[in-house]
């Protein structure tokens, strides 16, 4: 098992934890956090591949993660604002109750 | 740490010489470890002492400003001589160590314990990248400035933990306020130093200090504070730093008259002392960063004063800044919550952004000489003074100068 595979396993474990959290919890914030975790797992993959890439000086993986972090920040801000908006509407943030958009 | 040329004055080399004398005999990996430990130890010792006397200085100065003597009765141990209350810090320390540690029953025990520890830990690790002297940088990081502020960002967490864990509405309110304030002022704080990085072309603290070497006309040092954008950045930085370290006039989270003692309400004894210490450490670290970024770091202000060792200059500047902090605390009244956030979002952030553009202009025009140099200064000044005046007018619109009915004007 090469170190890269260790890293990848680490990342997929993190991803799955995030996924399970997002799927099982009903609290919107926790769901969001689960998604953040999944995103982090992806970042982790980038860094791992960069770490073992033949030409790390180019730094593509690192750059990707930087952008990804920026986007994650945006996502978190908007997501939590949405949560607050939902809370204002239905006085709780249980996601299974926020289904008014259904067809 | 780089090799040190033997040509430098002895005083400049003294710390390294001392350390090498002590650890020179150790084999390589051990030597590194021991050296690091020594550095940590020295930093803790020096700044711990500084903290102690800073509390005293603050109390004395506040006292004098408020026309009362301040602490003056604590005798030195064993010899019983009262020397300006110089022993007060030690007395305080002994008291806080021996006091009973009270944890509320409903409190979140773990967090209640963790909060001061986390706070202190993060306050202390920020010291790692500050260049205290020409060769005195604990860790030379490529992204030193970033590290500093990343570590500093974590302190907010501790405040929240404290407020939350106490299970007390005042504490929680304080924590919320602290969070709002810290988030608000994090932005101008960061934006204030970005121009420096832009102009210096580096995130490394040592390189930033290096970039400020030299003198114009033989006496005006090339510190960034002596440029229009640098001055503006410095002022914004200091204001934001005041807010970040919860100091007056931004001390809303621990506003006694409103929130008892804010997130510290349920803390006593040693944990309280840790909080106290962490706050002062934070203040010292931010001042040190301000010095590094804007005030030329450890550099001497005048060419003929260069013989004084660099760490002494750093120390001098640090003390001046800290005394300034105390002075501000003694002078300004506390802001209201809405004023606080409005000031940050509607004034400091735009100003800092404009200042960033200003710095970009500055670095784009670095080749201008002669009369163009004057134009460059003028444009840069206008770029920052204009928005300052305009936004300031907007900010203070509708707020007339206060008239005191019974006071002679």
């Amino acid at each position, binding site marked *: 098992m090469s170190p890269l595979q260790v890293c990848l396993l680490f990342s997929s474990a993190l991803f799955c934890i995030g996924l399970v959290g997002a*799927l099982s919890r009903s609290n919107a914030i926790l*769901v969001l956090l689960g998604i953040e975790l999944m995103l982090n797992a992806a970042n982790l993959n980038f860094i791992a591949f960069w770490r073992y890439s033949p030409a790390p000086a180019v730094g593509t993986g690192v750059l990707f993660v930087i952008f990804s972090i920026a986007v994650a920040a945006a996502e978190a801000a908007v997501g939590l604002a949405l949560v607050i908006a939902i809370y204002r509407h239905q006085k709780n943030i249980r*996601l*299974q109750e*926020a289904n008014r*958009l*259904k*067809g | 740490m780089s090799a040190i040329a033997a040509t430098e004055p002895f005083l400049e080399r003294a710390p390294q010489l001392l350390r090498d004398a002590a650890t020179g005999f150790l084999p390589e990996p051990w030597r590194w470890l021991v050296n690091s430990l020594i550095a940590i130890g020295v930093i803790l010792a020096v700044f711990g002492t500084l903290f102690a006397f800073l509390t005293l200085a603050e109390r004395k100065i506040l006292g004098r400003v408020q026309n009362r003597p301040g602490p003056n009765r604590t005798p030195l141990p064993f010899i019983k001589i009262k020397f300006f209350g110089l022993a007060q810090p030690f007395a305080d320390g002994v008291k806080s160590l021996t006091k009973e540690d009270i944890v509320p029953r409903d409190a979140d025990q773990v967090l209640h314990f963790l909060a001061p520890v986390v706070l202190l830990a993060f306050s202390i690790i920020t010291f790692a990248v500050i260049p205290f002297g020409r060769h005195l940088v604990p860790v030379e990081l490529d992204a030193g400035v970033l590290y500093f502020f990343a570590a500093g960002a974590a302190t907010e967490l501790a405040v929240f933990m404290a407020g939350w864990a106490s299970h007390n509405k005042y504490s929680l309110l304080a924590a919320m306020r602290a969070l709002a304030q810290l988030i608000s002022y994090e932005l101008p704080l960061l934006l204030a130093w970005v121009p420096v990085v832009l102009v210096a072309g580096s995130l490394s603290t040592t390189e930033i200090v290096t970039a400020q070497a030299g003198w114009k006309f033989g006496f005006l040092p090339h510190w960034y504070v002596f440029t229009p954008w640098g001055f503006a950045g410095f002022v914004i930085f200091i204001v934001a730093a005041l807010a970040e370290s919860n100091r007056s006039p931004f001390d809303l989270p621990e506003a006694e008259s409103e929130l008892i003692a804010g997130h510290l309400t349920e803390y006593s004894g040693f944990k309280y002392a840790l909080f106290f210490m962490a706050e002062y450490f934070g203040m010292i670290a931010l001042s040190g960063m301000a010095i590094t970024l804007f005030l030329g770091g450890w550099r001497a202000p005048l060419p003929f004063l260069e013989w004084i060792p660099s760490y002494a200059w750093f120390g001098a500047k640090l003390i001046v800044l800290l005394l300034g902090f105390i002075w501000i605390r003694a002078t300004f009244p506390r802001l209201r919550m809405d004023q606080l956030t409005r000031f940050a979002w509607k004034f400091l952030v735009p100003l800092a952004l404009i200042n960033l553009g200003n710095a970009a202009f500055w670095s784009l025009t670095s080749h201008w000489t002669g009369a163009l140099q004057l134009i460059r200064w003028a444009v840069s000044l206008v770029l920052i003074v204009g928005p300052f005046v305009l936004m300031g007018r907007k900010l203070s619109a509708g707020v007339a100068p206060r008239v005191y009915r019974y006071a002679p004007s």
Partner: protein
Amino acid sequence: MKMTLSAQHLWLIPALPLLAAALGALTPRSGRTPAAGAAIGAMVLSFLLSCGALATALAHPAAHATANFTWFAVGDGAVRLGWLLDPLTAFMCVMVSFVSTLIFIFSLGYMKDDANFKQFFCFLSLFAAAMLGILVANSLLLLFVSWELVGLASYLLIGFWFHKPEAAAAAKKAFIVTRIGDLGFLLGILWLYDSTGSLLFYDNGAGVLEPTALGGLAAQTTLCGLALSTAIGLLIFCGAAGKSGQFPLHVWLPDAMEGPTPVSALIHAATMVAAGVFLIARVYPLMAADQLLAGVPVHALTVVAFIGAITALLGALIAVAQNDIKRVLAFSTVSQLGYMMLALGVGSWVAAVFHLLTHAFFKALLFLGAGSVIHAAHHEQDIRKLGGLSQPLRVTFATFAIGMMALAGVPFLFSGFWSKEAILHAAHEWEVSHLPLFAGLAAVVLTAFYMTRLVAETFFGKARSHAAEHVHENSAVMTVPLVLLAVCAIALGFLGTPAFPWLQARLLGETEVHGHSLLDGSGLMLGSIVLVALGLGAGWAVYWRTPRAKDTSPDPLASAAPATIAFLGARMKFDELYAATLGRLNTFLAAFADFLDHWVWGGAVNFLALLGEFSGTVNREADEGGLNAGFDATSEKLRQTGQAYSHAQTGGTHGYLRTVAIGFVVLVLLVMLGGGR
């Protein structure tokens, strides 16, 4: 110090007053002194420069010194302008600038109470500058430009008291009537330009007044068998007739009296009306180019001569029946201008210019004198209400009398006599017809008669109104120019007596003066002296001997022949005639154009619009009733299907997330099992 001015620097002469005008326009209303000072100073400088130009011109009287330059390029060609210096230009410049200077100074006193004092001087400067521009131009185009500016300035000045509706109307009338002449002028310019390719008068052999071009113009025949040069000359004469108030277009001149008196003086003496005569004198070679042709219907100059003769007689006749002091003078100007045109027409342009110069001085003198009277008599202009002014207004009276005698042609001492004699002499020698001569002689009698009437009614007898009783002599600012002009009105005549025709010789480009005895042609001279005496005597008999008693008492002539005098007093009803014909035509055309727009074209458009609207209505009915039904059914089906599918949308986030995860798994499995690489 020898003062000279070469053609290159000739532009300074009009430029200085123009600058003064610009300054005047830009100073605030309160800047009376600077504006007036600038205007007068510029005029004095212009006068000095003109004297320098005269010195240069007299040194080489035969030369046409030019300075030509390109104004702007058009395509690969260019529009060229230039300055011209010859004795004609130089004499005219001296005259215009001198008279203008005096009139400006007079205005200081006359206009001192006016609120728009500053503006007045600004306009005056513009007026003088434009006139000087006409004089120094070596290009018909430049001349035309200045010509139009003269028109503008006269418009502004005649309408200077614009709050009076009469003044505003008079200004407009002056502009429009001269504009009619100018259109002919413009066509003449265009024609000339098109046929010669140049508008420069003298251009080293390529100018339009030089033999090459003239020969070509005279050789071509155009409309109605006219020579090309005749046609162009007549068109140009249209412009001259408009500006100089010649017969059909003279109607604006008397109305121009609505302006302040200095303006009248300027228009009638130095600037505006002189421009027409000057123009014909300037393009005289062109006008005369057809003289040698036989078999053409008419020569250009013949037309000029007859028009001039008609105008001379007409003006004199009408002047007899006018009661406004300024109107009398105005019609006398019309008459005198007729003389000048007559002179031009009969071939003696030199005599015309001589009369133009002398007339300028004594007419300026008369107008300023009239102005002095009016100013003293509190703006009373009706001679029936004046009277008895010779005592209180001694200086004015004396100078006015000199002017009157010069105009009437009192022999030997006065300049008017000599110049008029020269004209009559030339008319006598004209071979085509003697009718102009007789018209001129008749006008001589009439002139002497109405001028005597004017002086007698104004200055003698009793004061016949309250305004005329309390008069005081005006200040030196107004009297000194009068005295200076009076001196000139006498002295100038001696430059051109038949015995010593210095002026004529210089104008013709000769350096030697060939005088001949006064006795040559003395018969004619004697005859005209007798005629003058007759006129004076008649005037004395009718108006002087028995002065008018009251302002309402009837005019002796009017009681003798009421219908005639009334007809003359109404200016022979020219205004009414024009209003009934041209004015009505104009109104009709306007109404016609409006009608076309409103009903014919507009109606057509509206009809089309109605048509469109109707077809739209039809279309809509067809659509809604027929075509839409099928579409509606289809859409309903589509909507139902969509509704059915929309139930897959649960709205629960978890469900979506789960679907995504399962989809992901399926995808990965597909890739792996399908051996995706």
